[in-house]
């Protein structure tokens, strides 16, 4: 963990205004915000831990918990909502056996929801990793997951 973090911290120097970008980089590196990384960040950049924590919990994109290999993101924007996005979320919760914001014990999947990905016309939409799945229905959930289960 040390190397990746050092590179990130070096890139930003002492520029405290870049805190959001630094946290984004740390999350991109480790898939979540590890406690040790935040402690080190706080020390190196001379930012109080309380402030780092307040930023990490204010913004929805950050996670303080380990996340799975595949991030399953269900869109719950307005357009997806009126077309039954919640039903897709519930179906995913059943299939994966975890609730929203949780990770499967084998660290394969993390189930998250997002308030709009901007592909409203193809809703309900699910995104796994970088791949989008439009016009979702309950019966498409299992076949969609299958590919990622292996």
């Amino acid at each position, binding site marked *: 963990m040390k190397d990746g973090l050092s590179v990130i911290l070096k890139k930003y120097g002492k520029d*405290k*205004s*870049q*805190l*959001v*970008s630094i*946290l*984004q980089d740390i999350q991109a590196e480790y898939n979540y915000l590890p406690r040790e990384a935040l402690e080190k960040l706080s020390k190196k950049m001379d930012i109080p831990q309380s402030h780092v924590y*307040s*930023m990490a919990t*204010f*913004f*929805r*994109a*950050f996670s303080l918990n380990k996340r799975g290999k595949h991030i399953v993101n269900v869109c*719950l*924007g*307005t*357009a997806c*909502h*009126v*077309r*039954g996005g919640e*039903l897709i979320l*519930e*179906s995913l919760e*059943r299939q994966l056996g975890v609730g929203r914001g949780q990770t499967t014990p084998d660290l394969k999947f993390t189930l998250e929801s*997002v*308030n*709009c*990905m*901007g*592909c*409203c*016309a*193809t*809703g309900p*939409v699910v995104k796994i990793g*970088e791949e*989008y*799945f*439009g016009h979702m*229905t*309950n*019966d498409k959930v299992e076949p969609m997951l299958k590919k990622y289960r292996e």
Partner: protein
Amino acid sequence: MTFRKIDLVSRQNWQSLYNGEIIHILVGTATCGRAAGSMAVLEAIRREIAGLEGKARVSEVGCMGLCSYEPLVVIVKPGDFSVCYHHVTPLIVPQLVEGYVKGDDPCLDLALGTVAGGGDEAVYIPELDLFKHQARVLLRNCGYNSPLEIDHYIACGGYRGLSSTLEMKPAQIIRKLEKSGLRGRGGAGFPTATKWAACSQTKGKTKYVICNADEGDPGAFMDRVLLESDPHAVIEGLIIAGYTVGAGQGYIYVREEYPLAIERLEMALKQAKEKGLLGRKILGLGFSFKIEIIKGAGAFVSGEETAMIAAIEGRRSWPEHRPPYPAEAGLWGKPTLVNNVKTLAYVPLIIQNGSDWFAGIGTGNSPGTALFALAGKLENTGLAEVPMGTSLRTLVYDIGGGIKKGGRFKAVQIGGPSGGCLPEGLLDTPIDFDSLKGAGAIMGSGGVIVMDEDNCVVDTARFFIDFSRQESCGKCTHCRIGAHHLFSILDDVTKGKGSLKSLEALQALAEDIREGSLCGLGKMATNPALTTLRYFRAEYESHVLEQRCPARVCKELTAYYILPDKCYKGCDHCVLACPAEAVFSDEQGLKVVDQVKCTKCGSCELVCPAEYNAVIRLSPVSLVPENRRTKPQTPVKEP
């Protein structure tokens, strides 16, 4: 290099592409296209035209706005029709390539229509109802020009506005904007010239300009489409803004949820720098300007300008009191101009085509066009750009093609979580800043969600309040706690637990939240609840008085029921699909939903074969016949 030279080179490159013998294949690969599978189509086309170098070429383009027809492919054939194909899959790619790239059959049966040529043989797309009522100003390049190649933008008139700007005095530019009547497209419709003048007149060596691309409305995607399809238009507008107010640094604040927009912006910035249109001494003249992209981290409130400034400074996105306005003291306390993506994208066109051109589109008080993201229960979903003053009816019925599957229109929610829900009686309201405000909605972000009889307005209000409550930054008590209470009242109503008193409380609380919140997001968060209560009171009343949800959406008030006379005993689809094992067979083999076990996921309704169509929803739940509610207990056999 002078602009004239840059322009010449771009035009030559463009003409060598389009005037030659090469067949040009355009694939829409914006996010909406990708969600529909356009990347696989692109790959298939690349495979099929391998070996045809010098004869055919494929380009990625942005979004035409026809999201419901994605994936879209346009084949531009020199001296022949340009044909647009819809719902393209990798399987039909060989047929298209064989037919129209290698051969002369335009495969019109697979086409939506032509974008050039065609005459009587095919539908001419710009004449479709869908397009006829539109005025594509901001969308002019979207879906036709490659966002990955700056030459395309320049050859079609791009950066000419910037080139003229650099020969003008800031005061002249502001006068031009003032004459055009341009109002900010972020939602509130503040006159752009006034904002620019304030920032320009504030004294200070260091100033900033920010492009607000934190599209927060969970049902709007025009900013995304513009950034993905025509990023240079926004960049050009931002540079002009920087020159006018005297800023050397610009920021584009984009949602992290838009990775493709960020990628394309980065590429566009790089290309603009290489051409000398951005960076030190732009076009060899005295003005230098830098642009940096800042990625948002998922907070709706960041779209509020003071909150956005806080996020850029490395703080939590908390809105601040205004005044002082950012134009006087913004980022790092310096004068700062914050404008929405669309507002900035209009600016180069106004410089180039003149104020009168812009003022001539739309209405007197709201000139120009309005860009809407049409979603919900419409035949044609996607983006539409109409002159201001167009009626909502035209937007829903002519452009949107009416309600999907012949359903009945119920309401249109316009302006997102800060907007309002309008009934059929208000469909003739002209779309402009002031008329919409009068009806209780706002132009807002331009998200338009159309609802039919199967959507519940109480549920929709609950949805928006739930959104606003989660996204409340927590600074003001009225918004932070008020929204929670508002949500719990609405939640009770959707469960049939409320009373007429709840509706009174709802009204009073909503008005208090409006009074007691600092920023626009808090103030307007109650609009969805207030407008639905104003226009759809009867629907609220049936929830609380009859425990009935007329749209049969609210789960607690709705039951799934299988009609025995339509059910077929040999069919097991619903039994197999039910995740809760709630469907069982009665003694005749007909299926029954156990109301105790049912989680109301809707799987049975989804899988019931169309020839039976036996699953229906009932509300109130007491409509389910008593003898078909639960599985009868099997009597325990005496030993």
